[in-house]
């Protein structure tokens, strides 16, 4: 994962006394890590381990009655249409968000990374939704997606789409709102990558008679690889864990059309009163996110190296 910061240090190198002595062995004491480790252990590790235990019980979430049920929560997931459907939705939503957000983010970055006069302003405009709470963005978009033909998107374009009410549209509507909020995030990371592309390379390619597309394909794109890695990773993890936006906009409906793993595990715990089962789903989600991130890093890193 060092890819993310591998060059960062070079930008902060004031004049010091390098190489006065090769003295690498001066490791700081354990005590430096102890406070962080303690807080991390208390707030994250211990509760997660204690929580995992619930995944093997039938605890309702309240009261003292609970018994161990072995692996039956996990086998129940395999027969649970709602959980399986939400897994499908989560995957579709993630793929849609990852692809569209990064393509849009890249196009915006390429557009802003030019000599146009408004580039500084545009950067701010496209990035600004990132800093706002997803719940508030969802409330705003609930209005934008209003089925009323005189309001929102329908009013603007004279459409009659039931954006959040039609089960075959709702999931994509949610993806649209997520992309709107985070395309600027991808843009900024791509921009940082583009700034690292040396101008001379472009000029050399131009002299060789390369067109815009060719220059992008052979000069810009390979050097963007690290930015692509980090963008794909962030948007994938974000997509898989997506909760706030769905909770505030549709709460999983209509029917089960926008139910994601996060909303299902929320409902199992707080609406259906099946805390043990909910924890089992959370555990599956955790393993899933970890596996996907691992595969992504492994694959994308090897791509970076080979180029």
């Amino acid at each position, binding site marked *: 994962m060092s*890819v993310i910061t591998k060059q960062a240090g070079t930008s902060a190198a004031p004049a010091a006394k390098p190489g006065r002595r090769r003295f690498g062995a001066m490791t700081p004491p354990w005590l430096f890590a102890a406070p962080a480790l303690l807080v991390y252990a208390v707030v*994250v590790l211990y509760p997660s381990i204690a929580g995992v235990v619930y995944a093997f019980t039938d605890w309702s979430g309240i009261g003292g009655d609970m018994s161990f049920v072995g692996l039956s929560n996990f086998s129940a997931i395999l027969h649970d249409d709602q959980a399986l459907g939400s897994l499908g939705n989560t995957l579709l939503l993630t793929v849609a968000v990852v692809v569209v957000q990064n393509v849009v983010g890249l196009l915006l970055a390429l557009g802003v990374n030019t000599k146009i006069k408004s580039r500084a302003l545009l950067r701010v405009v496209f990035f600004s939704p990132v800093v706002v709470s997803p719940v508030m963005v969802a409330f*705003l978009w609930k209005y934008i997606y209003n089925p009323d033909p005189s309001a929102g998107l329908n009013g*603007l374009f004279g459409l009659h789409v039931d954006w959040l009410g039609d089960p075959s549209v709702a999931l994509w509507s949610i993806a649209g709102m997520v992309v709107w909020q985070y395309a600027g995030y991808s843009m900024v990371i791509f921009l940082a990558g583009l700034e690292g592309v040396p101008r001379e390379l472009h000029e050399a390619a131009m002299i060789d008679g390369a067109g815009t597309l060719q220059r992008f394909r052979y000069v810009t794109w390979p050097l963007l690889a690290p930015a692509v890695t980090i963008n794909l990773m962030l948007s994938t993890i974000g997509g898989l864990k997506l909760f706030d936006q769905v909770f505030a906009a549709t709460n999983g409906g209509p029917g089960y059309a926008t139910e994601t793993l996060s909303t299902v595990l929320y409902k199992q715990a707080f609406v259906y009163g099946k805390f043990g089962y909910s924890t089992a789903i959370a555990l599956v989600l955790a393993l899933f996110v970890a596996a996907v991130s691992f595969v992504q890093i492994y694959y994308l890193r090897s791509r970076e190296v080979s180029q």
Partner: protein
Amino acid sequence: MKARTFLLEIVMIAVAVAFLFPVYALVTLSLKSPDQIAESPLAVPSSPTLDNFASAWSSAALGPSLINSTVITVVSLVALIALGSFAAYFLARVRSRLGYGLYILFLLGIVLPFQLGMIPLYRLITDLGLIGTHLGMIVFYTGVQLPFTVFLYTGFIRALPREYASAAQIDGASHLTAFTKVVFPLLRPITGTVLILNAVFIWNDFFTPLLYLGGSGFETVPVSIFSFVGQYVSDYGLVFAGLVLAALPIVVVFLLLQRYVIKGFSSGLKG
């Protein structure tokens, strides 16, 4: 070439205008009375009114929640930077297997969904008498955001030459002084990133404060807005005025510091 740049400029501005449509709807509706909204929701307000803002401010109890959010965010950030940078310094420099294992242990925290530990953590915070308090949330955010913070700092420190600190130590400085006087100042770029990414996350986080602060009178901005919208959802003008007010502080801070914020977001995360 000039003509192409000009064309591109037009296209990009058009894209930005389309992009801002939701924001236009937000502001326009917040300036209208319910009758005006019923008549023509999207038209430019002919006689804008600020009534919505006055009533949203009082009925959403935004004043106290802004204070809550600010206290929780600021103190958590200080704790994260202090704990995170010290730990990362150790993790980046230690060469033992155990040290590497510890680093992986921290990274594990990035993928763990917080729902796993939800109830045990709640019990723990209750036992400590911290439930429904600022301190409880601060401890929570410090712990939950530590993995990401440690990850960012460690990567950055690994790329720093070891010699700076070593040199200082040979001059007789302790590890502590070497870190605070020599290394930490060098971490400024990544500290900016840590600050900004964590600030945006903590300020906007919704589910945990909903669980842990719901009904306590110590709600943060997103939780207050959630219940505010739940109560007045039929009155778009009022709801949107509330959204504008709630988003305003962070948007203003962003606009003032936009250069640093955008840089912070990308520099720690770039290739």
